[in-house]
């Protein structure tokens, strides 16, 4: 007996396909069907009840193959659920496979609802732990925290995915589990991401939930929700989880397509009226939670694409208001060769600073105010007038800092090393020869930090002073000791 016959005989209700509008199928019958219920077609395809009208149901199809008019439909009596297990770690998961497995009547494993109501305030705790991305400009100037939702926003091909992969790399090395949701991404891009994880040997800490443009719109729409469900399952098992949703502008477009086919009234830019709700209910599932095993977090990094740097788009502003800050990837900075091209003046972090130590807080403040000054100083150069010594020093320091912030894709730097490096540049400890060959010295220092416990101990002790000024006071002497030990 196949699944369709099983549910038809068990539930005892039948419907028939009347009309097909792309990925929306109009079905009559099924008198006791509920909203968002999963239905199964005689041909084996799955769908979800999207709209309920007086005598008809609109079902969102989960397969690319269409159904024929007159096809029988049966209710399953359940909402969207998935089987989530440790076996998923290191694999690329397609949402349709999970759905098909979940409706098998012989399945005895626990099922997790894909659409969950976010936990309430009593089950959450204040965010207190920093999230290290390994990227200096973010960790020092625009810090993130575990449980935060930080929007990654910018034009296409500005290095957003590269930054996310760097962050995943760093977080997996620190023991967090990462869930990467590739929403409507090309197969080639998904393969590249998979190869990156394999090459950097982090597949034991990563799950990829992927859908391609060839998948049905219903499946693409489901991808981020499934990724969040996976994150919640592993959070409950005692892991801090990082979720990357790449990208939600594609998700919004797919949802718009489905809603227009279902003849929902179009709103701004033809998006349906519940677009904000659709993303907000997803992002609210991230945070810092109190579980039976302790406090664990789900940090969410949703991605949004802009066109020509326009941050005032509908989806972009929706996401900015649903998140705890955003990192703006500026295409002008990208064109100037900055990597990552994060604009610190247009980026915001609302929660990350409260998790920083005193020293890092001071460093972040210094960087932002200095970069502000540096930006203004740059304008003086254009006049061609003779520059005073102060201005020259500022510009020189600024250029050194920019060089420091330029980070190759595969390089992640521990936060304490970042602080030390900044202090060394800020206090002019390093001479010009070191600055010219900065990458080499940075790599060396990172390697020594990661492999030599004595170096690590001394660096940590130097960085964890009461204030940045106190750290600068003993910098030269203590740095010399670190060099001697290394």
């Amino acid at each position: 007996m196949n699944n369709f016959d099983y549910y038809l005989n068990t539930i005892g209700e039948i419907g028939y396909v009347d009309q097909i509008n792309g990925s929306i199928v109009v079905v009559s019958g099924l008198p006791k069907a509920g909203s968002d219920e999963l239905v199964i077609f005689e041909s084996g395809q799955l769908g979800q009840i999207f709209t309920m009208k007086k005598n008809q149901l609109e079902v969102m199809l989960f397969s690319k193959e269409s159904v024929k008019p007159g096809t029988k439909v049966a209710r399953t009596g359940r909402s969207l659920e998935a089987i989530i297990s440790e076996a998923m770690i290191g694999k690329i998961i397609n949402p349709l496979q999970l759905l098909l497995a979940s409706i098998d009547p012989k399945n005895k494993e626990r099922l997790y609802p894909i659409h969950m109501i976010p936990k309430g305030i009593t089950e959450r705790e204040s965010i207190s732990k920093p999230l290290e991305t390994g990227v200096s400009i973010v960790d020092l100037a625009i810090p993130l925290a575990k449980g935060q939702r930080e929007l990654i926003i910018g034009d296409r091909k500005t290095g957003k995915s590269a930054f996310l992969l760097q962050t995943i790399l760093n977080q997996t090395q620190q023991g967090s589990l990462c869930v990467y949701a590739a929403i409507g991404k090309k197969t080639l891009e998904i393969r590249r991401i998979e190869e990156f994880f394999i090459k950097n040997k982090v597949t034991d800490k990563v799950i990829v939930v992927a859908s391609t443009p060839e998948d049905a719109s219903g499946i693409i729409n489901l991808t981020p929700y499934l990724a969040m469900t996976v994150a919640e399952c592993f959070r409950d098992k005692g892991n801090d989880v990082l979720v990357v949703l790449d990208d939600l502008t594609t998700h919004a477009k797919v949802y718009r397509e489905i809603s227009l086919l279902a003849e929902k009234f179009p709103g701004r830019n033809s998006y349906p009226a519940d677009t904000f709700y659709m993303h907000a209910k997803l992002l609210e599932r991230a945070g810092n939670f109190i579980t039976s095993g302790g406090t664990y977090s789900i940090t969410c990094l949703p991605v949004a694409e802009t066109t020509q740097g326009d941050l005032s788009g509908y989806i972009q502003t929706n996401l900015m208001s649903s998140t705890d800050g955003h990192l703006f990837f500026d295409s002008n900075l990208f064109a100037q060769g900055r990597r990552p091209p994060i604009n610190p003046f247009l980026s915001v972090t609302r929660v990350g600073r409260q998790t920083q130590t005193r020293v890092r807080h001071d460093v972040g403040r210094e960087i932002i105010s200095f970069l502000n000054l540096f930006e203004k100083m740059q304008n003086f150069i254009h006049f061609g007038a003779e520059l005073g010594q102060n201005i020259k020093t500022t510009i020189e320091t600024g250029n050194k800092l920019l060089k420091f912030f330029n980070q190759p894709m595969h390089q992640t730097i521990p936060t304490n090393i970042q602080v030390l490096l900044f202090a060394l540049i800020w206090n002019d400890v390093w001479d010009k020869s070191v600055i010219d060959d900065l990458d080499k010295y940075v790599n060396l220092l990172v390697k020594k930090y990661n492999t030599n416990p004595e170096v690590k101990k001394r660096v940590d002790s130097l960085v964890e002073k009461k204030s940045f000024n106190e750290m600068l006071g003993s910098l030269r002497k203590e740095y010399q000791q670190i060099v001697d030990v290394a």
Partner: protein
Amino acid sequence: MDNLSYRSRLMSLLTTREDVYALEEKLENLYTLIGKVNTTLEPKIKDILDYNTFNAFLEDFKNLRLQPNNQTDLENYIDFIKKKIEKINYLKLTLAITPSKELIDEIFYWINKNIGQDVVLDLTVDKRLIAGSIIEYGGRFKNYSIQAKLDAFWAKNPNLI
């Protein structure tokens, strides 16, 4: 003709979906009579409809106070019957055997008495059921066939095969 609640004598003759299709065909033939000038309609209607249907037709015209030879009345009546046909509820019955006329009438009588007078049978024969029937009505589905019981038995006891 706004009186859709009128219980048409013609509609009461419909037992199965085949009867409905046949009636629809006859209605299309009746439609061809409309627009013909200098024509007495009643003999032509008698030619198109069979004996029972024609008598039911005349009874409806009498109850509704219509004139069979009036083209406007005929057109309105045909539209009225078509609207009635659209509102028919079908009870889909799948049997393992080809039913006799007496069996169909018995089943139809039971349906009329227990479900209502706007229900028509949609009969299908599927020998794979072995015995019993499958009933579908109003979106509800009940499988009372031997095939379903056997499938459930084999699903529970796969080792016996």
